[in-house]
């Protein structure tokens, strides 16, 4: 006699049913998604003020801040952290960790980041690089020829 409950097709159908969830689950998901999207917009609004600039922190201390270069200029910032010095490169491609004394190297593997709100953090070394400001503000920048009273 075949056990219909253990048939692979029955199992798959049962799992699909579980995957759909109840209407309450969907309502909870919708609520969470809306809250997250709202939070995201709020953060982006605060971040996109001013020109795109890379900020480098060690803990609460701001070590350096440089506007992202428009030309081929490359800036290297040696950021001294808890376990050593992280070498951070700022160029027109964005900001990236070139080297770091940490063991996991998640920070160096993250590559270059150039978009508003991008964050690269080296948790063991307590070093963080963040980009604030938006490219869109380049066009909005007001250029004064003269100021008269």
């Amino acid at each position, binding site marked *: 006699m075949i056990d219909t*409950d253990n048939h692979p097709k029955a199992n798959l159908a*049962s*799992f699909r049913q*579980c*995957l759909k*969830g*109840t209407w*309450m*689950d969907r309502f*909870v*998901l919708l609520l*969470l*998604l809306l809250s*997250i*999207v709202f*939070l*995201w917009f709020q*953060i982006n609004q605060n*971040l996109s003020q001013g020109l795109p600039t890379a*900020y480098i*922190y060690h*803990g*609460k201390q701001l070590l350096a801040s440089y506007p992202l270069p428009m030309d081929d200029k490359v800036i290297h910032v040696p950021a001294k952290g808890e376990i050593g010095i992280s070498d951070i490169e700022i160029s027109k491609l964005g900001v990236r960790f070139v080297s770091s004394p940490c*063991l*996991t190297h*998640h920070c160096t*593997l*993250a590559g270059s980041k150039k978009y508003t*709100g*991008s*964050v690269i*953090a080296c*948790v*063991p070394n*307590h070093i*963080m690089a*963040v980009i*604030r400001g938006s490219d869109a503000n380049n066009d909005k920048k007001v250029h004064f020829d003269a100021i008269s009273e």
Partner: protein
Amino acid sequence: MTTTIKKSNIPPRPSLASLEDKAIWLSFLLLAIGLHVFEATLPSLGPWFKLGLANIMTLLALMFLGARAAFMLAIARVIVGSIFIGTLFTPTFFISLAGALTAATVLVGLYKAFPRISLISLSLFAAIAHMSGQFITVETWFIQQPAIYYLLPPLLLLSCVSGWINGAIASYIWQRLHRKC
């Protein structure tokens, strides 16, 4: 020489039900550690993000054995799992422990407040709590910059997806095992 043991000195024999519960808890713990280690071997899906498969076992422990067992399982899984991975007492360990503790607290709290809540909803809230707990720990102890929260919204979206899938898997296993019991 013969030794005589007074009957009063013999500890009472644990009940069969209690032994069964311990055996189930241990098997859940072994599975959770296995999933924890397995996930560590998978290619990274991006910095700060993991699927959280081991949370399926915490959910099942909550349903089968209750709040205390689920809480203990979450802690034990992180400690033993990090011994196997080699991250014990590193920043990764503390971040992972904080996430697991926050998720377990939210799981237990919600389950006690709303006993009829589904496993998928529980898992969704636990996934969000896990991610938030990790970020709060990183911000408080390591990076100390609120700017780290800029990373939070996209990761919370991914947490919702993984939370839903984990909840569905836990729900499926719960239905299958519950029917058999």
